[in-house]
């Protein structure tokens, strides 16, 4: 079965597959992601979930995407699935029932973006600690972080503060004339955006 015929029969497919540099991406209806994955694993040999991650397209609607990187070891082929979800309804069906490895990937997407996965066996934070109030990989979250509670340690008496960022070595200005201008500076726009949103 060629990739084209696989995609033709794919349940919940939205639009035509996009091919870029030999990589094929298919949009999937968010309500049918589990059916699509079951079909791909059972009938098309996509036995490996290489990666599952969230994407924050801040400023667009729908804002978030979930990306599934699939691999078929037998057929030596790759396939990428994408589903779009809006900010108002961050709920996706979990594919842990299809590939068990999705467990931690979905926890990471939940931790970093706040995307919740229905029927996930253990949906809790994986990188940040339990009780952390933010989802730090969202574009409106400042890199330096925001104050939060950190219980059971003595870090600044249970408080986490923003890291000192001014002059911080993170955002390199591209295309500037001299290296002094290109020198990394803090990009404050993310923090400013967050503050504006919080105050309004």
């Amino acid at each position, binding site marked *: 079965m060629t990739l084209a015929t696989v995609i033709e029969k794919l349940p919940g497919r939205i639009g035509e597959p996009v091919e870029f540099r030999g990589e094929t991406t298919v949009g999937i209806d968010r309500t049918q992601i589990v059916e699509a994955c079951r079909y791909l694993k059972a009938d098309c040999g996509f036995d490996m979930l290489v990666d599952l991650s969230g994407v924050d397209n801040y400023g667009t609607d729908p804002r978030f995407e979930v990306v599934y990187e699939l691999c078929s070891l037998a057929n030596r082929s790759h396939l990428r699935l994408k589903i779009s979800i809006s900010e108002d309804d961050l709920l996706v069906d979990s594919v842990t029932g299809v590939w068990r490895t999705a467990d931690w990937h979905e926890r990471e997407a939940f931790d970093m973006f706040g995307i919740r996965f229905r029927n996930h066996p253990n949906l809790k934070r994986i990188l*940040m*600690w339990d009780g952390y109030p933010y989802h730090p990989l969202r574009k409106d979250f400042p*890199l330096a*972080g925001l104050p939060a509670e950190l219980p059971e340690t003595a870090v600044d008496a249970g408080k986490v503060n923003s890291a000192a960022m001014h002059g*911080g070595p993170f955002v390199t200005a591209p295309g500037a004339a001299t290296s002094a201008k290109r020198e990394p500076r803090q990009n404050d726009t993310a923090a400013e955006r967050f503050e504006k949103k919080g105050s309004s």
Partner: protein
Amino acid sequence: MSERVELGFDQKVESRDIIITRVDAAVDWMRKNSVWPLPMGLACCGIELMAVGASRFDIARFGAEVMRFSPRQSDLMIVAGTCVYKMAGVVRRVWDQMAQPKYCMAMGACASTGGMYRSYAVVQGVDRFLPVDVYISGCPPRPEAVLEGLMALQNQIQQEAAIKGMKSSERSAPTYGQPRGPIIIRGDYAPKGKA
């Protein structure tokens, strides 16, 4: 009272194999030459710490070759690497389980200040939750810098009033001579002259 107090086995009665010294000096001398480190290797500095223990740099020359992974048996916690907030609780719990007297070394830029990680996830220096005795700069530090930090700590241990400190409820024992403060090792070991 003089500024500097002579310490160590500095008096010997010839031909009788008798050494006269103070108890504090003897205890300090034993302690400083048997500092058992707990290698809290959290990131790449942990690899450099292994080099400190290996034959070329050989931390055994300073009596600190017995790396203990049990907090019960170790005296010096070497925090080697980036500490994230989620790990901070674990590091703190291990530190709390170490028996007195105990010392803490922040090895490298990340452990000292958060280093290049100005981020929501990284503790901006382990001194936010640990009482650090020695800070070592570098990313990672040269093994010589770690050894210099260890030697500086040994000098500090030799200044301690060990017996008096046993009765004190404070963490750090009172010292003779200069009061205890954090040691900062700049660790400038750039090769001199032509390479």
